[in-house]
């Protein structure tokens, strides 16, 4: 099964942390370890939601909006695509995510 782990955070709170508190070395080790096990299929950290540009359509005409599709306190701050045997294995990966100020939403991917 393939899953996307959505790394949900408050941009504001994340930006208020010091480098030490964010502990990127631990995050890099996490990605590295998953890649080493052949579990990781891709992933990235995203810039803050305020940098988003949203495209939508109105009767066939596209419209651009400055900002995310929904203004919320918590947004997707990153993601990891993984392939593991089942949900229990995905939960285990999610539980090992080091930045515990995040929440991790596990979403199974639709396979076509």
């Amino acid at each position: 099964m393939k899953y996307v782990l959505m790394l949900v955070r408050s941009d504001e709170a994340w930006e208020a942390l010091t480098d030490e508190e964010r502990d990127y070395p631990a995050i890099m080790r996490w990605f590295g370890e998953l890649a080493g096990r052949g579990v990781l299929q891709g992933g990235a950290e995203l810039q803050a939601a305020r940098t988003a540009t949203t495209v939508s359509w109105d009767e066939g005409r596209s419209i651009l909006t400055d900002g995310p599709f929904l203004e919320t306190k918590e947004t997707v701050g990153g993601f990891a695509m993984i392939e593991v045997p089942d949900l229990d294995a995905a939960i285990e990966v999610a539980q090992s995510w080091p930045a515990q100020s995040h929440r991790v939403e596990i979403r199974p991917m639709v396979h076509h």
Partner: protein
Amino acid sequence: MVRDEAGRLTAALVRLLGDFALAEDLVQDAVVAALRSWPERGVPEDPAGWLLATARRRAIDHWRRQRRYEEKLAQLVREAPPPERADEVDDRLRLIFTCCHPALGREAQLALTLRAVIGLTTPQIAHAFLATETAIAQRIVRAKRKIVAAGIAYRVPAAEQLDERLGEVLAVIYLMFNEGYLATAGPSPDRRDLADDAEWLARLVVRLLPAQPEAEGLLALLRLHRARWAARFGPDGRLVLLRDQDRSLWDREAIAAASELLLGAMRRGRPGPYQLQAAIAACHAEARSWEATDWRQVLLLYDALLRLTPTAVVRLNRAIALGHGVGPDEALAEVERLEPELRHYHLFHATRAELLRRLGRPVEARAADGRALALTRNPAERRLLEERLAASG
């Protein structure tokens, strides 16, 4: 009868077909057919065979529609004989753990367990929870879809996860029991069937998964509660509190057997919340009278329980023991500290009322009883509170 066979059959079919949702549907259809046919024509000689044959017919209909008829039919005909015993144990445990997977919400776990493991029909579950059939059917469909879509594995959890996952199963059983023991609302104050089902399932788990002290503790707890069943309601359906119960109506043999089971669990040296709750229930069940209750022991057990599960409700129950073991002043002070968390819980107000009465503050007691009454829908509890209010007015 249906209960025992349905869960066994579902468990076997899931493994056979590799499709949780389909297997559960087929068995559900067979159970509905059984409930229609058995009361009229009598229980067949081989109920399991009857259910399997019916489920098999439904499966064939299903695959005929699905145009995968031949391939799957061959599989079903080849593998259809009832499974062997060793497989069966694993099958049933897999089914229980899948229905109680922590990725499903508690209500979904409960509804699914009642359907797939116990074999209740959707209308029966709806009746038990005073919910509409549509709501229950939706809850079950959503849960089954999630199992398939999210990749919840059909298996018994690995050893290092077993404690945590067994905890989920036990929580579902205890919730089922409490729904039956003292339903939150509705016309009949207790719904004995669900409590019966819960005890049956607890026994099944203890049998399939031996040497698990918390499972044994829960089974002992349920049996201790049930041993007092006959004394819990008066002839007119009124709720009788523990203190006022006629202890000669308690089932002494059942109490002794449950205490024995509990001792066996505790000897395993891995204490837990269900064992402690059962030990508290045993203290009450073994006391000759309310006055003769060993409150110091009860209080010690609550202290231990509070360390494992530091919740406001446990603190409230501990405060009641404190009221008898130490005194109403200390108990009232402790109860009032819980107000922010429990002010919407009727037993918080009822407990406070009781303590205020003992302390000779009847006006405040009356007000607290009034708040408790406004917060419960259970008819037997309402009646008790109404009578208290009438007596104090």
